[in-house]
């Protein structure tokens, strides 16, 4: 059953990637995405604190990824 979950997930991600080729912006249109408040994790310390609190008090943890968004420079 787990293998089915994983295969479905991989398929979903592949679909998202291929579907995403029709979305997006030009490299020079990333002014809003470059703003600090538009990053996926705006405050890494706060995110770490929350992760720690909720991990201590609940049975789930993590899930977040990283990378992407931002100014896309260099």
């Amino acid at each position: 059953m787990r293998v089915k979950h994983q295969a479905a997930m991989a398929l979903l991600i592949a679909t998202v990637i291929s579907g995403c080729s029709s979305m997006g912006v030009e490299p020079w249109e990333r002014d809003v995405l470059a703003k600090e408040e538009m990053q996926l994790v705006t405050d890494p310390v706060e995110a770490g604190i929350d992760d720690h609190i909720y991990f201590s008090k609940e049975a789930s943890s993590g899930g977040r990824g990283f990378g992407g968004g931002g100014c896309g420079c260099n």
Partner: protein
Amino acid sequence: MAKKNSKTISVSLATATCSLLGTSVTTPVQAQEEPGWDFNTALLYYGESDDRVQDVSLNILGRRTYVDDRFLTLGLVLDSLTGATPGGALPFSSPQTFTSPSGLAVYTTPADVFPLDDTFLDTRFALSASWQQPLSRLFTMNAGLTASKEYDYLHLGANFKLARDFNKRNTTVSLGLAFANDELDPEGGAPVPLSAMLDVGDLSNKTGDQSKDIVDVVLGVTNVASRNLLFQLNYSFSNASGYLNDPFKFLSVVDGTSGDPIARIPAPGAVGPLYEYRFENRPDERTKHSVFGQTKYYMDGKVLDLSYRYMTDDWEIDSHTIDARYRWPVGDSSYLEPHLRYYTQNAAEFYRISLVNGAPPVSFASSDYRLGDFDAITVGMKYGWKTRSGNEMSARLEYYMQDGDAPSDQIIGNQASRELYPGLDAIIAQFSYRFGK
């Protein structure tokens, strides 16, 4: 004075640092690219009501930027924990006496309240270091180490992440791996699982130190949908193996009809528990799968951050988390950010509120409320502002509440008239200061 409940926090800690695979030390590349240091510091107070857990911590993240998009990030957390936490026994109409985890003393809790163990205080010290750099124009890597130490707990971890951009950097695919080894050496030794709580001085049910290994994998896709909209989708896999018990948690042994605890008489001349308790036991392996989605949407200066996570594991716990934040600029240099989070989970397959005397033995049982059936809500507000020198400060205040139920098929006799799930009420207060360049 036993430092037992440090385990409660350290278990969480260790895996929290593992869960750091996904957050914290990975740098949004353009935020500070001038060579130099920048710092992100925070002071946190976490306090539960009714004299339960209180935590004060200092968190510091220092990042050194090197030319051409390379970063060294160093993190430090200092944490001081006090207060009481439920030991796992059910309330009863008489006071209850328990042997402390060290096996050297007893403590007594009043009648008709959830028995709490307040015999602990602990200090934690955690360090992290990570290095990030491009491997080529479209590839970025990040490698890190984590370590944390408490009186009876040591965590060591390593993580590695790789990200590749596609489609003019509109799409980023990332893969992360983390490994950790945690060692627990509780004062008095870890108890033999499902063994009885014994009199003071009787350490015959204690074994030595214990350890566990954790592997985490995260696969993610981040996508720019439009100039104002970004989203991320991740799949995570986590496997923990080894000693997964909480050595300080136990269950009440109750009569199969009345639901009342079974009385016990300490040995002549000894002090000890007046009722029967058994230490908990969890499986020695746990596999979790999570799917996480997040979106950030910019609307004319305001930013909405919405995320959802689904987790399922082989302990039969399923959980859903919805988190929403709305950042609202106030004037030129400050903002307000209300926050709402809703969490729900169902109990682990081996979650038991008590053990029935004389029933067939179980392999696994735990009454740890964190493995139970509950909903939790966080409501908070954050206010942030830029100082005259261009640095950032913020303050947030949140209220976190958990409310759960004992599975109805486990309630026996008189238990129906007692509180069966401890619940939780806490204040989170944090002050942050970010400076540098």
